[in-house]
């Protein structure tokens, strides 16, 4: 059952007699449906019959358009007039890795900004954007139009806006409770033109509960920030950027003693020695923060001064989330505090912790549910810092693991098979062997058996990313056993179209498919015709698709928007397809199509 919201015509249940036996007064139905929260349940309810569809649409408050190009703002507003929160997702994920030329859908958000400004969503209190190009003009438009009841703006992996846009939000949205700018790629500004948006918040006490700007590239005025924190008594989550020094962080912590989530900024004292913050003072600061046992999440450490890292030990007992993914921590350093982290559920680290560090994690963090091991040097030729040893240790120690993202240089089938057996609750398994086409480095065999074991033993698996040397056999396993799979990422794998056929014919719940640089052609693509309408998108780049095959898909599936995108150099004459990105859409192909995109 897809989570996508769309106007699927409900199947007529039975011929209308008078009156229909299951007639329920609409308002009773609406009252009941209000208790339904989960998106899947809501979608299911809306498909029962027309009156349920009407009632559900009238009462839906959390509206998610997980592919912004699939439904227009106008249509969404018409269908869900009571939308209180709006979640929009834009670019495909592979755009994060420079695979999509910039400007691909630069004005995707504009109609939404206009709709919001025109009060098309009168009940809107919360806006969540992910991978969406947002301009300062959009933010200004929204900020001026939204009422004081607007509560939350979250920008994740968005781009295009600058400090000016943030200033608009800060100054106009008086009732704002949440402003989260996370991992965004903000526009480069001339230093003289940067606006201090923190100072743009009105001088009255604010309702801010969450303020996060860890990715913001410029320094904000610390005085303004401190004053803001002082007059925001409800602040629970604070994430500062790398320009906030350790001493400044300490001061902020004293003003917000009941923080639950803290993004620590640089975690380094200012140069010049005038700060003179010492180890003991920092420990005290954390001890005070931890006194109420409220602090559960730490992140930041963007320019870590390693000698201060152990100061967090005093709050480790209560930590549930620890993000060290910007801090190259060594095994010796992590050992100093990870022993207390026995309540840790989410841990993001760099591979600088090495296998020994992971072994320590496995020993103490028994409740770990989500682990990410990111590479310090994201390069195929980098030194090997973590390997199958670390993975095996984690699988033995952290049996409750639900989600893992693991970057390494090489791997063995045995370790992956072990993980599949030790961690049967896995829902997300993303293994990135950075060396392309790397086989099992002990046996020399392809990694087929490892990934096969994962899909076979982890019956709840919904997301899988493969890597290493894989033959069609691996995909045979995936198709056969990956019945719960919703997201699949494949790169540099497979031998032939058979692999793609296995996927498309086997994975009945597949919603998102990302493939790059695999020897898959038109035959493989066409084998999925029966399923594409149930998917959020299909991305295939660097494969063996031709114009012919893609045209065939477009012909047979009129509601699919089939985009052919050319990475440089543009070559209109070839029959080969560089990037295929296709998705269903209720409103037809978009109009703002850049020159390197062709919509069939």
């Amino acid at each position: 059952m897809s989570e996508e919201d769309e106007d699927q015509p409900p199947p007529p249940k039975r011929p209308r007699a008078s009156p229909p036996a299951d007639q329920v007064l609409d308002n009773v139905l609406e009252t009941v449906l209000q208790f339904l929260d989960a998106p899947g349940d809501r979608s299911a309810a809306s498909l029962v019959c027309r009156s349920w569809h009407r009632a559900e649409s009238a009462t839906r408050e959390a509206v998610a358009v997980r592919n912004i190009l699939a439904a227009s703002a106008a249509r969404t507003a018409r269908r869900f007039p009571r939308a209180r929160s709006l979640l929009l997702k834009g670019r495909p994920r592979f755009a994060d890795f420079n695979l999509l030329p910039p400007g691909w859908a630069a004005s995707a958000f504009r109609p939404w900004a206009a709709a919001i400004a025109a009060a098309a969503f009168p009940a809107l209190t919360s806006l969540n954007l992910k991978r969406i190009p947002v301009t300062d003009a959009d933010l200004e438009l929204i900020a001026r139009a939204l009422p004081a009841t607007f509560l939350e703006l979250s920008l994740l992996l968005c781009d295009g806006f600058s400090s000016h846009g943030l200033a608009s939000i800060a100054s106009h949205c008086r009732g704002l409770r949440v402003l989260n700018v996370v991992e965004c790629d903000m526009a480069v500004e001339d230093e003289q033109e940067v606006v201090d948006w923190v100072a743009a918040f009105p001088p009255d006490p604010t309702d801010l509960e969450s303020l996060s700007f860890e990715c913001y590239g410029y320094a904000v005025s610390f005085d303004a920030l401190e004053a803001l924190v002082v007059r925001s008594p409800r602040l629970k989550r604070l994430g500062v950027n790398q320009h906030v020094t350790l001493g400044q962080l300490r001061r902020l912590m004293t003003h917000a003693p009941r923080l639950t989530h803290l993004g620590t900024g640089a975690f380094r004292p200012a140069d010049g020695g005038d700060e003179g913050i010492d180890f003991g003072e920092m420990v005290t600061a954390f001890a005070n923060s931890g006194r109420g046992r409220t602090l559960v999440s730490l992140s930041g450490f963007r320019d870590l001064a390693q000698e201060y890292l152990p100061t967090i030990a005093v709050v480790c007992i209560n930590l549930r989330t620890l993000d060290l993914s910007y801090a190259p921590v060594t095994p010796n350093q992590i050992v100093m505090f990870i022993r207390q982290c026995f309540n840790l559920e989410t841990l993001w680290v760099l591979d600088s912790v090495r296998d020994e560090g992971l072994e320590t994690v496995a020993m103490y963090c028994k409740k770990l549910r989500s682990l990410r091991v990111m590479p310090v040097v994201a390069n195929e030729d980098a030194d090997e810092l973590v390997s199958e040893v670390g993975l095996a240790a984690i699988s033995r120690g952290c049996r409750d693991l639900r989600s893992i993202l693991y970057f390494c240089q090489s791997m063995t089938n045995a370790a992956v098979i072990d993980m599949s057996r030790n961690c049967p609750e896995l829902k997300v398994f993303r293994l990135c062997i950075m060396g392309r086409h790397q086989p099992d480095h002990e046996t020399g065999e392809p990694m087929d058996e490892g990934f096969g074991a994962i899909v076979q033993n982890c019956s709840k698996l919904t997301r899988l990313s493969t890597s290493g040397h894989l033959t069609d056999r691996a995909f045979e396993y995936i198709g056969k056993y990956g019945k719960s799979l919703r997201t699949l990422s494949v790169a540099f794998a497979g031998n032939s179209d058979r692999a793609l056929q296995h996927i498309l014919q086997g994975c009945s719940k597949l919603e998102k498919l990302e493939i790059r640089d695999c020897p898959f052609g038109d035959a493989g693509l066409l084998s999925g015709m029966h399923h594409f309408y149930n998917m959020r998108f299909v991305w295939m780049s660097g494969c063996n698709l031709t114009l012919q095959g893609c045209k065939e898909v477009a012909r047979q599936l009129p509601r699919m928007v089939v985009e052919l995108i050319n990475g440089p150099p543009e070559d209109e004459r070839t029959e080969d397809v560089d990037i295929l990105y296709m998705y269903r859409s209720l409103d037809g192909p978009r109009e703002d199509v850049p020159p390197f995109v062709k919509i069939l």
Partner: protein
Amino acid sequence: MEATVDYMKAAEADNLLATELRLGLPGTSNDDHKATPPCTPRGKKRTAFDAAEDAAVEEVTNKHDDVEAAPPVAKAQVVGWPPVRSYRKSCFQQQQAKQISKPTSNNKEEAAAAPAPASNAATPSFVKVSMDGAPYLRKVDLRMYKGYRELREALEAMFVSSNNGGAANLSEFAVTYEDKDGDLMLVGDVPFEMFAGTCKKLRIMKRSEATGLGSPRQI
């Protein structure tokens, strides 16, 4: 040096830079307690480059891609692989650069000089370049250059050949820069990475004005 941003090339440049710096440091993690001999920054830098070249040569024999021995031209990197966002990749390159230039530079300044990168380019570090007698200023991206020689050539291309009738190269001029403390310094004394981190503005002045700066090293 053109500042054209071909996103594929820029991703390569990112990776090349990573290779160049990383191979020089002992180990790959920023292990502060690994003893590095206390020597002049320039000496340290030279060692780094030597080590980088040695390692690159090793790479050539290990991998069968055609690659030149010089570190900057490493094996062809695949776009978007490994799947790590370029912001994360460039974060650690910056940190490594700071490690090298730690003694004199101010971290905050450097971080401010290299703001959130565009989605498809290396972190730019544009500084103004003024030349005595030229009517308007130019801007150069210090991150585009790997050394003083390339910077010099770029400056020559910008200022000398087109504008000045008399001068054919920069030997009549002294290239100076203003660092983060506001002092006027002669370009060429410190390792290039350190210079790139601390330089705020470049100024090309006539040699006759550059008295008191000692015998300038040819950059």
